[in-house]
């Protein structure tokens, strides 16, 4: 069953069209990857799902309910994420002047049960031991990889049903990126969390995913299972450097 369904959405920045009639869906429990070159519109799509950029046309449906619609947008971002969606934004956007622990508290802003928050935090410190070691440190003192872990942990604090990851590997060393992707797979398997991710490292993204979409100049040009896309000739040529 599709947890997230995107139907014919278009987004423009002034005269520049960023997305044209994009349709796609993410099934519950899957990891779905969206690959594409710089400027293809990947981050715009992520921002559109959570209502950070307005739609020109089309609908975004979550769990059978329209959350974003052109013209009569009813929900603001804070109400959309309350439905169970968490986005790890491109460039991590940690609250740099706050400690690791305070960042996790912010991730749990919507959770009112303090015992549950404490338990979630311990879970995160177990799963990302480096965060446990640095819980009292300002987040700005963390390395890029640690900040990415921090941003993912922060998103998991609200126990979302759908996790959106925007370029989790951006600017990180290959080993760190692999570590992050293995964590994502563990989260997906253990808690059946649905993951939709955008990534430049197409090989790693497709290898980790059940299904994939290819975005070019604001349009979906190809879609298939992760495996099939990996062996697709045009994907290999354009994104895998083969």
């Amino acid at each position: 069953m599709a947890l997230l369904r995107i139907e014919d959405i278009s987004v423009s920045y002034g005269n520049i069209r960023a997305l044209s009639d994009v349709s796609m869906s993410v099934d519950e429990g899957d990891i779905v990857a969206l690959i594409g070159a710089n400027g293809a519109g990947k981050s715009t799509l992520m921002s559109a799902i959570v209502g950070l950029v307005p739609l020109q046309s089309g609908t975004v449906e979550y769990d059978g309910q329209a959350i974003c619609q052109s013209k009569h947008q009813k929900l603001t971002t804070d109400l959309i994420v309350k439905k169970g969606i968490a986005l790890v934004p491109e460039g991590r956007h940690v609250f740099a002047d706050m400690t690791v622990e305070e960042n996790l508290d912010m991730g749990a802003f919507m959770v009112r049960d303090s015992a549950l928050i404490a338990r979630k935090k311990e879970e995160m410190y177990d799963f990302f031991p480096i965060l446990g070691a640095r819980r009292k440190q300002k987040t700005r003192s963390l390395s890029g990889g640690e900040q990415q872990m921090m941003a993912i942990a922060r998103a998991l604090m609200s126990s979302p049903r759908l996790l959106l990851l925007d370029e989790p590997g951006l600017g990180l060393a290959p080993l760190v990126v692999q570590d992050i992707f293995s964590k994502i797979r563990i989260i997906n398997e253990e808690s059946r969390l649905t993951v939709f991710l955008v990534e430049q490292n197409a090989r790693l993204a497709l290898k980790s995913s059940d299904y994939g979409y290819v975005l070019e100049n604001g349009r979906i040009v190809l879609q298939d299972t992760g495996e099939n896309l990996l062996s697709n000739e045009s994907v290999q040529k354009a994104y895998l450097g083969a």
Partner: protein
Amino acid sequence: MSTFTLYMQYIVNGITLGAIYSLIALGYTMVYGILKFINFAHGDVLMVGAFVGLLVYEALAGAAEPGMWTIFCFFIAMLASMAFCAVLGMFIERVAYKPLRNANRLAPLLSAIGVSFILSNGAAWIFGTTSRRFPYPFENDPIHIGGVTITPHQILVIIVSVAMMVLLAFFVNKTRMGKAMRATSLDQPTSMLMGINVDRVISLTFAIGSALAAVGGMLAAFDFRVYPSMGTMTGLKAFVAAVIGGIGNIQGAMIGGVLLGILEAVGAPLLHIPNGMRDTVAFAVLIIILLVKPDGILGKNEREKV
């Protein structure tokens, strides 16, 4: 009196004055932290706070002799004034600033100046322009410690200001909404992703800043009396204090206010500046800070790690 005790006296006076600047500076800095906008109507909110406080105090205390009852009345008047200004602050934001949030950066600034005129002229219309005395709620017999004199009203100013700042520090560092306020000032879109209702945080920021201005206005009223344009100079100086501390930084506003108060109280006699020209000290300090360290003492000059 030796020069040393004389200057100790100036410092005590400066701290008292500075504590008031700090309370008012907090409102400027908190709003700037989140909206990157200078609320120039903030000084007039402190004037409204002083008037409301005075009216409530007079209604309650009447002609009672200073004593426990009048002190109690003073604190009730302070709470009433804080509540009134909190609502006023939220109302001003909702009506005059929120509709302009996506407009040109100059628009809310001009709107703020308009609100400032409406408040001060409105007060002149209702209360007239003659200044009123804020009666001391207690006998103001000075206390002598060494060669330094401190009045009960100075002690009240310091105790109330410190209490307010401790409460505020607790709020922003320990409570859920306080942390949400810091998060919003650090990164607005990301705080929305956390499920934070940014509009509500902005309203709350105006409420708290205006309530603190109400307290500052009442405390300033002892020395400066109560009149419709009382907020202009005090508000401007509190703004200077916020810039000195690093605008947008809460601790900075606290430090900047006290520092400005001391500089003003000590600097004027030290440089033989006549009393009528004392205000120049604050603005000279502003110019020096802008030239030497435009980010202020605690301003954000660290680069974000990308």
